[in-house]
């Protein structure tokens, strides 16, 4: 039979553990956490921002996201290389055949430099074999997707950095460029004749304002 005060102590302990787990998920399970946990954010995020730590916290989060994205990008490249590397025995066979038994109309390499050139062309041929199928196209597309994710994380970091330095951010600059471009487009369309015309040759060079003709 346990002591009453011992039960109370155990209940408090369990409660604290649950609170801790809810604020810092993964900590009790000894799993690595990669983001500012939701519980901590709910409790202290507001005050941290009020103290001017918002951009730093966003930069920290973006750095973590960047690290993860780069890891995934490396994995995508490795998967692509693996696809090509699976054809390595085929490349070796082709290479040996090229050196020992050149086909009709081809000459065996006469120097190490020629061997290297032969190897390069065979390596590319083998890579084409590996990459021209559905798996190859998907692996290459995945590399592009992961490169996009890395760039997105970089952008998040730069947005936070610009905010912390009181500089116009990338998105704000893009918005300004967009507005300029839309205005220029409107001007161009307004200057263009509505109906395709027989060209008025003499006036053609100076019809649109802002352009330079020499």
């Amino acid at each position, binding site marked *: 039979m346990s002591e009453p005060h011992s039960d109370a102590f155990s209940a408090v302990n369990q409660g604290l553990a649950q609170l801790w787990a809810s604020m810092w998920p993964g900590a009790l399970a000894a799993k690595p956490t990669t983001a500012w946990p939701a519980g901590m954010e709910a409790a202290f995020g507001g005050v941290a921002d009020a103290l001017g730590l918002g951009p730093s916290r966003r930069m920290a989060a973006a750095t973590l996201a960047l690290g993860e994205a780069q890891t995934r990008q490396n994995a995508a490249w490795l998967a692509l290389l693996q696809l090509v590397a699976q054809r390595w025995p085929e490349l070796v066979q082709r290479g040996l055949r090229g*050196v*020992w038994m050149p086909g009709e109309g081809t000459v*065996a*390499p*006469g120097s*190490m*430099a*020629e*061997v*290297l*050139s032969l*190897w*390069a*062309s065979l*390596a*590319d*041929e083998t*890579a*084409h074999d590996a*990459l*021209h199928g559905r798996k*190859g*196209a*998907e692996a*290459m*597309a995945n590399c*592009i*997707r992961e490169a*996009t994710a890395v*760039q*997105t994380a970089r*952008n998040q970091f730069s947005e936070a950095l610009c905010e912390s330095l009181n500089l116009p951010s*990338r998105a704000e*600059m*893009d918005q300004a*460029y*967009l507005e*300029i*471009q*839309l205005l*220029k*487009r409107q001007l*161009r*369309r307004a200057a*263009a004749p509505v109906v*395709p*015309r*027989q*060209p008025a*040759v*003499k*006036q*053609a*060079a100076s*019809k*649109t304002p802002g*352009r*330079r*003709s*020499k």
Partner: protein
Amino acid sequence: MKKRLSWAQPEALARELGQATSQLLRGAQRLHAMPESELAIATTPKDEVYAEDMVRLYHYRPLVAKAQTTPILIVYALVGRYQMIDLEPERSFVRKLLGLGHDVYMVDWGQPSRAQRWLGIDDYVCGYLDHCVDVVCSRAGVDRINLLGICQGGVFSLCYSALFAHKVQNLVLSVTPIDFHGDKADPQKGAGYMNLWTRALSSDDVDRLIDAYGWIPGAMVGLSFMLMNPAGNAAKYSTELPRILGDDKHLLNFLHMERWLSDRPNHPGEVTRQWFKDLYQDNKLVRGEFTLDGRPVLLSEVRMPVLNIFAKGDLPVPNACTRGMAAHFGSTDYSELGVPGGHIGTFVGKKAQDILAPAISHWLGARG
């Protein structure tokens, strides 16, 4: 067999290594002493006659008395610089045209900055290109010009000819993708990687890519081309360059090409979005669904004479995407010409150079 494998003997290997080392040393000295004037590309004399934003229009000075009255406006792609067609005097497509008495203009799309990330194909075709055509017409005192588009510039020229047919006398397309799904039925190993990559992405993937980067950096464009033949490109620097270090002519050929290759402009984001989604993914050009400035680009409106040139060994633009397009055009005067070599070799390769300009000149001459 012993003779064939003589290079594998230790003495032969040591001798080859020794020769390569001394060649590298001599080559390093030669490279160090090489003046900028020898490395310059695109040296054919020309004058800037029009400028708008980063776009420039050049007029080449005549080399012989003018024999052809209708000027040619050359439209290059955005993925590289226009200098490729005037790489060096002996390998200059422009010089050959000038030598045949043509009046040649060239659009230089320049180096788009982040400020130009929102430019679309609409802005290039209905804006910059149209303005350049107007300037050429005005300067030459003509109503129509001959338009010569190369690769992506060929697509721009084709769209322009469909929308502004009244300003184009003859249309010459070179290594131009038209049916972007042509490779599906006729896949060619090692060719059409851009088609494969783009189709493996979803429409949302492309949107995310453009939204994240804003533009496609020139270095990324260059890398994507290098990855089409990675080992070959690596071997170029490790075996080809040392081999030609003692040969000035070939060394300069190599260096001029490298200078051009390393000067990749950034690709505006919205152009890339249209290029990937509307053309590579949805193949809207041949389906008659591509629109610019709200107007449909109908190839049936291309009624002027068309010369469609393809490179027999083209890898970035598979032959299946560019050949046999007569049925799509409204023109009853459609011709095709195959030239030896690859995508770039069309304009810098010796064999192609001997054929290309004379064939274009002859074709244009027959049509006024």
